[in-house]
């Protein structure tokens, strides 16, 4: 599915999107790899679109995988050895211990559960939770910390590593910056309202600022209505249970964020998982669900909700929206898109994946997103038809039980959104969106040329570069910090065991100089740590992957 158009070129500059989107509803006939569910092809309409999805998930060479597992194996062996030494009192155990009065209680957590944390994560944990002491802009200040006991505790030296290039924070549009005059309204609201609300939306916590923000969000997304919540994570976990319940089916992408998984679990609905972004896998589940109904009772499902994300934060892949939308329509399912990482980040005017594919946002039942990333604030929204939003106003767990959004934060979002929409009278917002797209294209292309294995969609500003081996993860992150570049590295359990990676997050605020400096450092790292695993031809146009490289096509 990843590349239905075959060998056509990928989309170039921004205005090409518009052309593409006009034609995107047109069906294309050459949908040859639409395997698994053959009946659908014969009877149903073929659900392929001209819109190109150039996505790459190159497999690692075999020896890399072997060494990666070997690395974990050795780490585990030494872990057992160290545990043995600790238990027999030879090595001092630095972990916090239960108080003596409660020694005979059932252990609060199983020792084994913590094996990975104690023996593998502890060795390299200096690469996470690095404290910073400035705004998370394109350059930030990292507080230097050292450990005298192999990462069990940290000591702050008091020194500050100034002006580290930040390629870790989700600051897509560069709106997370320290105060400047353009943020005057935020200051005014803070001074007028204070920072808290101290009540819920249903009781005494609906402020005029909330109303203003909700109206603006609805306008921004071009939908009927919207509601905002104080925390992005909770927007998912506290609203999905209001939409579906027992007797309903949730079809969830296997790589969905924890908050979506939690929301699905709390809802009490049956959950089935389809392969990441895999249309065949989803269609098979949908068909089976509609045809065979609920297990055992065979009663028809009350409703089916498809839970997906716009951009997947660890893969950099973009939702295959047109195909999923066609399935949704065919099988009368409902679609819930979490645009946490895509709102503001893709689409010619930053409206997220719907705009990226040129799809009417009214076709999506529930549009969810957060204000943490592109808007540099916090909180989340749910937008869609008025009846859906009204229902959530009345039944969302968050609206009834949780404190509403802080007014200065609401104001910051309003300001950012107006900027993106051009309502502030400048083209600054539009420029930022274009700059982000430009940065993304430039950076991804350079990485591909260097020979890294880079995951995801070529338009995604979230760029995972594969490192594989756990020891390289640590070496990479430490060396990069030495070169004054702050990277985010992720490993198991956030990714599959053998696919540890660094996740680069581009921002419109990154200048070409910054990107070049990062690229230079990456190049150096790639040679030093042998990270350039890609076996593909290094081409200036990275679109011509052969089909075997698409894991999605299995």
């Amino acid at each position, binding site marked *: 599915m990843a590349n239905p158009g075959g060998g056509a070129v990928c989309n170039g500059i921004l205005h090409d999107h518009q052309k593409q989107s006009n034609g995107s509803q047109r069906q294309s006939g050459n949908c040859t790899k639409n395997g698994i569910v053959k*009946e659908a092809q014969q*009877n149903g309409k073929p659900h392929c679109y001209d819109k190109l999805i150039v996505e790459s998930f190159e497999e690692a060479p075999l020896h890399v995988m072997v060494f990666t597992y070997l690395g974990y194996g050795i780490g585990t062996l030494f872990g057992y050895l160290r545990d043995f030494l600790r238990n027999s009192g030879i090595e001092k155990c630095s972990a*916090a211990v239960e108080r003596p009065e409660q020694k*005979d209680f*059932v252990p*609060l957590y199983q020792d084994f559960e913590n094996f990975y944390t104690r023996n593998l994560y502890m060795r390299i944990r200096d690469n*996470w939770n690095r*404290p*910073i002491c400035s705004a998370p802009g394109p350059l*930030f200040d990292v507080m230097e910390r050292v450990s005298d006991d192999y990462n069990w505790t940290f000591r702050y030296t008091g020194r500050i590593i100034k002006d580290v290039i930040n390629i*870790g*924070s989700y600051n897509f549009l560069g*709106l*997370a*910056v*320290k*105060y400047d005059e353009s*943020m005057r309204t935020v200051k005014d609201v803070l*001074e007028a*309202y*204070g*920072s*808290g*609300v*101290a*009540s*819920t939306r249903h*009781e*005494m916590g*609906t*402020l*005029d600022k909330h109303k203003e923000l909700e109206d603006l969000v609805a306008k921004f997304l071009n939908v009927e209505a919207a509601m905002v919540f104080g*925390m*992005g*994570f*909770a927007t998912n976990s506290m609203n999905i249970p209001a939409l579906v319940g027992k007797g309903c089916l949730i079809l969830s992408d296997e790589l969905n964020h924890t*908050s979506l998984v939690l929301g699905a679990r*709390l809802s009490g609905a049956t959950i089935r998982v389809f392969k990441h972004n895999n249309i065949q896998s989803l269609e098979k589940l949908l*068909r089976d669900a509609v*045809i065979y109904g609920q297990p055992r009772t065979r009663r028809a499902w*009350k*409703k089916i909700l498809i839970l997906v994300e716009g951009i997947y934060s660890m893969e950099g892949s973009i939702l295959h929206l047109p195909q999923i939308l066609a399935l949704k329509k*065919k*099988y009368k399912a*409902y679609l819930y898109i979490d645009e946490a990482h895509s709102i503001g980040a893709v689409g010619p005017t930053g409206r997220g994946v719907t705009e990226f594919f040129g799809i009417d946002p009214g076709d999506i039942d529930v549009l969810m997103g957060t204000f*943490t990333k592109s808007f540099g*604030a*916090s909180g989340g929204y749910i937008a869609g038809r008025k*009846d*859906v939003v*009204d*229902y959530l*106003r*009345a*039944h969302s*767990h968050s609206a*009834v039980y949780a*404190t509403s959004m802080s*007014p200065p934060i609401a104001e910051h979002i309003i300001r950012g959104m107006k900027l993106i929409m051009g309502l502030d009278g400048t083209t600054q917002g539009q420029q930022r969106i274009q700059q982000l797209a430009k940065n993304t294209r430039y950076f991804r292309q350079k990485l591909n040329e260097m020979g890294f294995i880079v995951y995801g969609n070529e338009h995604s500003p979230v760029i995972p570069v594969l490192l594989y081996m756990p020891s390289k993860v640590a070496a990479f992150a430490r060396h990069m910090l030495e070169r004054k570049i702050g990277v*985010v590295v992720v490993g198991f359990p956030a990714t599959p065991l053998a696919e540890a990676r660094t996740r680069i997050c581009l921002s419109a605020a990154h200048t070409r100089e910054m990107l070049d400096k990062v690229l230079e450092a990456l190049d150096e790292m790639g040679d030093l740590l042998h990270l350039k695993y890609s076996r593909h031809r290094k081409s200036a146009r990275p679109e011509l992957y052969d089909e075997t490289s698409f894991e999605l096509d299995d």
Partner: protein
Amino acid sequence: MKEGRKEVPRLRMATATEQWVLVEMVQAVYEAPAYHLILEGILILWIIRLLFSKTYKLQERSDLTLKEKEELIEEWQPEPLVPPVSKDHPALNYNIISGPPSHNIVVNGKKCINFASFNFLGLLDNPRVKAAALASLKKYGVGTCGPRGFYGTFDVHLDLEDRLAQFMKTEEAIIYSYGFATIASAIPAYSKRGDIVFVDRAACFAIQKGLQASRSDIKIFNHNDMADLERLLKEQEIEDQKNPRKARVTRRFIVVEGLYMNTGTICPLPELVKLKYKYKARIFLEESLSFGVLGKHGRGLTEHYGINIDDIDLISANMENSLASIGGFCCGRSFVIDHQRLSGQGYCFSASLPPLLAAAAIEGLNIMEENPGIFAELKEKCRQIHKALQGISGLKVVGESLSPAFHLQLEESTGSREKDVNLLQKIVNLCMSRGIALTQARYLDKEEKWLPPPSIRVVVTVEQTEEELEKAASTIKAVAQEVLL
């Protein structure tokens, strides 16, 4: 040779016997009755048939034709995503507050004194808190653009955690970016499938959701009924003796609230601590209403009862009530709290608290530490209005006299929840028109495990003057008389 000769006859004998057996078999066939032969023949055929046929035919039973499948797909009509909401649902006709939701509040354009927001210490409008938040805004901007693990840890967060731990006199504290998510994430970080949680019937919704996410076995005891809890603990002890292997890995937790959001009552902590050591169950205490309220220094329930805070395994509270900021925290011993840094879902997978809100909370703590008198003042005000509200015909006061949030329930229900709610709403609306902003306690009727009766929740803050408290009490009294008599 000799041996060879000996062998031959033995061999012959063996063949002879075999031959004899064969002969006998053939003879038996001849002698057998015909029906017997037929029966055996049928059995042999049956066996062959069984061997060659498939065991059962699932395919034949359920294999729908393509056309049938398409028809099924065509026919299926899902329920609408959401049922319609009636136009007069209170959530669709919400009060809009213009300006700050502080002591003097403008609700739907009408100026009122606020008796509804949990702004117990009046910190929402405090100029010092605002100044601290503003200083933070100037340095850090607004958002953190990432979770704690990925450059979402700011020095302000570390400061706030240290300050909270210091204030509560515990080893460590951990902050969350949303009050609701605090206890709802903390419980499933420890309590897993197979573990047992004893929980008070009146526990708030956040606890209920945390328990649901943990997938543990839930045992509910009657509200504040320690005898009932002990009964359940005893039952469990007997159960454990039956299966000691399982008991050795089954964690037991008791989850309670300091001051109950739903009832305004206080938790009998000393008895609970006794039960904890007797039955080896850990205590998780939710202090969203009691933190910054109870105790000489506002440290909450443990200080109120003079209990060693280390006896409580985990204390969680939000920073949205007394501290009038946003977010929540858990505190306790490092052995307990540190586990959440990798297991607390709302901590690991959510963007961290905006620094300006953390700065506001720190300044709030400063004010609390500098003016320990405010807690006594708040208590006095609670007592005053509590007393003044006694004896209203038709309304009863539910909750402790030291609780800054308590409930006014109908003395006698009309029999239908809807009617009760409407009656109370009438009282709320009339009070509002006379300058007293109140609200009903709102619940999701269908979602609550134990739905409290409808009530008006009265919130006391230190900013309310004696006259205002007096006025509120007399207004409520007068309005209740009008509506209920």
